[in-house]
């Protein structure tokens, strides 16, 4: 799961920030070295986007795994043989 600082750095990769706390509602953010402040709304939007992307990537990986297994089964391999091949 993406962290608030990941969302900030996704918006501004050069941002110099310190975050204290874990949730967007209670987190304390120090903007260092002249880094332009990003609004909590924008951070929250990016955080949701990162978490959605992460969930989508995980789902896509699972789908590919299932699809690959099915193709091997279609070729005639049984479950033990597939497990021996891909774990």
């Amino acid at each position: 799961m993406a962290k608030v600082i990941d969302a900030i750095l996704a918006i501004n990769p050069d941002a110099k920030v310190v975050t204290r706390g874990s949730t967007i509602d209670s987190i304390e953010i120090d903007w260092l070295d002249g880094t332009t402040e990003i609004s909590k709304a924008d951070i929250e939007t990016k955080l949701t986007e990162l978490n959605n992307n992460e969930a989508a990537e995980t789902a896509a990986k699972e789908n590919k795994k299932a699809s690959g297994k099915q193709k091997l089964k279609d070729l005639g391999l049984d479950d033990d043989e597939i497990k021996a091949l891909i774990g």
Partner: protein
Amino acid sequence: MATLFVDKVDPQSGTSLEIGSSGDTITIPSGATITNSGTATGFGGGKVLQIVQGSTSTETRSSSNSLVDTTLTASITPSASDSKVLVTVFQNGCDKSAANAGNQMILKLLRGSSVITTFGNNVTYTNSAISNSIGTTGTMYLDSPSTTSATTYKTQMSNGNNTANVGTQGTGGELSTITLMEISA
């Protein structure tokens, strides 16, 4: 055995007063109290006079190579200026993000605003762009603050490579602790 009743014993000359001779035993009987308001030496120091502990589980992350507070801090007021303070730190939940091969955490122990030791260098370093969580790092440091004023100890961290980010006390509720023990001289 004669009993001498006086309220004060002072040296006849000079400033030194000796009680008894070599081989004698001076006894403070049960129920009596001996109080020291001055400086006591030669009593075999090294006793723990007081213990203070601070802790935090606030996740703290930084993308800067400037030192920033980790929120781990504790204060002690030494009872004597020649006391030592044994500082024990367990900095829990240390990690780095995956965005850069060079990022790493640097951890320092401070008395007030002065760094007294760097207890973590290259912490979490992997030389590859992967995330890395190492759990706990820490230090035991014997300090001589030479004061009887309230003295604050804390830890600070920085991102050694000024890229990506590093953190301590992660989202799992990891608890970091700092324990201060005043040790008599």
